């Protein structure tokens, strides 16, 4: 019950100096608020990256065509089409490989009735949807027979559906792509953002042969821009990478010492890098924010020292009528912790509110976890105790007579 009374004394002291208490609390408000907000932003970013990684599919490689050197002038990846459908087929025959999907992307204008929409048109094979683990939710996917005969059919991503059809059901409708009529076979499930922030649902898919021969006809028949490759398991990734590289070297007649005209990328490694980057970022955000918590704590210590000095006579009177060292220590410690906790409470509310508005305004994912709120509360209480202890001990260790005589 003496604890309750000492808490009351702390509260009375806080009220007696309202302005000063508020200003001291402000340090904790900003400290806790920014920690909660930064953790929320960091965790949101991590969640987005993880979702993108999950949306990519597992055990994936992408084989890119390009860079050739022509008279010492080196072109970037994908600038020169060096990969062909036959390369894709040959890779698919390797033992470590589960499936392959050649890609030929390009941009085109789509028209339906009075709507039009510019989007990415990706030529590929039915294996693509298996490799990317991307199901058709309405209608059906095109088949190998469509690839063989280069039919004018397409599958639509959700964003394209929304922009071209609105609420209408596009399955079975005809749309014009580069002025040729195409039949909409089906709609794909929503996939969300890719790691580089692109909207993966803003794409339509056509048989690769259709893309090659009818839409983006070019001088190299059978050429593809890239090949998506899915290995049979995570364990054979290294072997698969080596096998593909060897195979393509032979097929492209690349001599020892000569630069490859293709590149193989392990997407799992890319995803890993992205994940650890965002994790590092969110840790750093948290660390920067905790500095303000520290600064807030120093503010509390500062004010508590002033408060102790101001109340030395009061401390002397309390000691004269029987306060023990412990009573004085607890009184000032409680005061510091109460200021700190009150500040943290306001900070937590503000932090959550700011995180919410930030997510609304920036359209990004922000995740406030209960553990981050408790964490910053716990840290704030600890800061209160830690920075309140020195001034409190200073007060408690005063000699009664010296405190009483203090002017």
């Amino acid at each position, binding site marked *: *019950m*003496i604890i*309750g*009374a000492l808490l009351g004394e702390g509260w*009375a*002291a806080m009220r*007696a100096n309202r302005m000063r208490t508020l200003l001291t609390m402000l340090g904790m408000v900003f400290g806790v608020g920014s920690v909660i907000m930064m953790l929320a932003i960091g965790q949101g970013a991590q969640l987005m990256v993880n979702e993108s990684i999950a949306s990519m599919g597992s055990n994936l490689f992408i084989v890119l065509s390009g860079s050739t050197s022509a008279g010492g002038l080196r072109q970037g990846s994908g600038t020169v089409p060096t990969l062909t459908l036959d390369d894709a087929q040959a890779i698919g025959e390797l033992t470590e490989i589960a499936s392959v999907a050649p890609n030929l992307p390009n941009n085109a204008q789509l028209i339906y009735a009075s709507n039009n929409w510019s989007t990415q048109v990706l030529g590929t094979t039915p294996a693509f949807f298996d490799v990317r683990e991307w199901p058709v939710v309405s209608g059906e996917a095109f088949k190998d027979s469509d690839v063989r005969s280069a039919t004018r059919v397409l599958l639509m991503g959700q964003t394209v559906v929304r922009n071209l059809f609105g609420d209408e059901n596009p399955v079975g409708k005809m749309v014009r792509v580069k002025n040729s009529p195409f039949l909409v076979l089906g709609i794909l499930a929503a996939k969300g953002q890719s790691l580089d922030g692109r909207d993966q649902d803003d794409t339509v898919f056509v048989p690769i042969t259709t893309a090659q021969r009818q839409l983006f006809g070019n001088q190299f028949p059978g050429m593809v821009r890239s090949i998506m490759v899915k290995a049979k398991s995570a364990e054979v990734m290294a072997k698969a990478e080596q096998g593909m590289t060897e195979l393509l070297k032979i097929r492209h007649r690349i001599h020892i010492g000569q630069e490859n005209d293709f590149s193989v990328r392990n997407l799992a490694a890319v995803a890993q890098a992205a994940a650890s980057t965002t994790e590092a970022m969110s840790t750093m955000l948290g660390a920067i924010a905790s500095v303000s918590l520290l600064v807030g704590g120093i503010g509390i210590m500062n004010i508590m020292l002033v408060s102790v000095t101001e109340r030395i*006579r*009061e401390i*002397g*009177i*309390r*000691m*004269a*009528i*029987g*306060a*023990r*060292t*412990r*009573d004085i220590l607890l009184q000032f410690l409680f005061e510091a912790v109460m200021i700190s906790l009150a500040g943290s409470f306001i900070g937590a509310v503000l932090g959550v509110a700011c995180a919410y508005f930030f997510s609304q305004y920036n359209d990004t994912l922000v995740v406030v976890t209960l553990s981050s709120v408790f964490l910053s509360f716990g840290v704030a209480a600890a800061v209160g105790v830690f920075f309140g202890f020195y001034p409190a001990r200073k007060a408690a260790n005063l*000699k*009664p*007579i010296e405190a*009483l005589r203090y002017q």
Partner: protein
Amino acid sequence: MADPLLCVTGLYKNYLENVPVLKDVSFNIESGEYVAIMGHSGSGKSTLMNILGCLDTATAGHYYLEGRDTAALSSDELALLRNRLIGFVFQGFNLLPRSSILDNIALPLLYSGKSKVERREKATVMLTRVGLAQFGDRRPNQLSGGQQQRVAIARALVTDPKLILADEPTGNLDTQTGDEIMKIFQDLNEDQNITIILVTHEDDIAAHAKRLIRVVDGQIASDQAS
């Protein structure tokens, strides 16, 4: 015979090295006595009172309170003695300016670990006894000096101490108010057998006491019944 309430033997106090403010002070005070201490300004009266009140410690010599050597007690044990055994009345009242009158009076009980209900009850009784029942909610600075000193006395009495130490309790008050305060002390001593030690400069105040100790330059010059 039982131990005297207070026993001081060969007490010295130096604030600065080799400048004793109290020199070889010795006396006993029995329970129930009413003692006045007089002396010139700077003679060491307050210094002595602070040691008797366990607020300060002697440089040499012994001070036994209820037979216990105060030099051997920890600061918390001394705090306990101040809380249970001693009540202080200071010249400057020494009330907490931000607390209400009632809270000021109840404060010693907080440090004795009494419940809130008990604190309020006892404080209210004390407040009524010093005739200030209607002022419980006021702050000290809303009372006159005499009223504040009565509050201080109520606070000193709230833990039922055996000993009241009053260092110039009437020093800041006019004669009439001073007499009212002295009347309270007299009643405490006569009706409740509370031991009172009082420092004063005024002969007619000292005349209330039954024993007079004169201090000159930190030494006891005379000690007699009055």
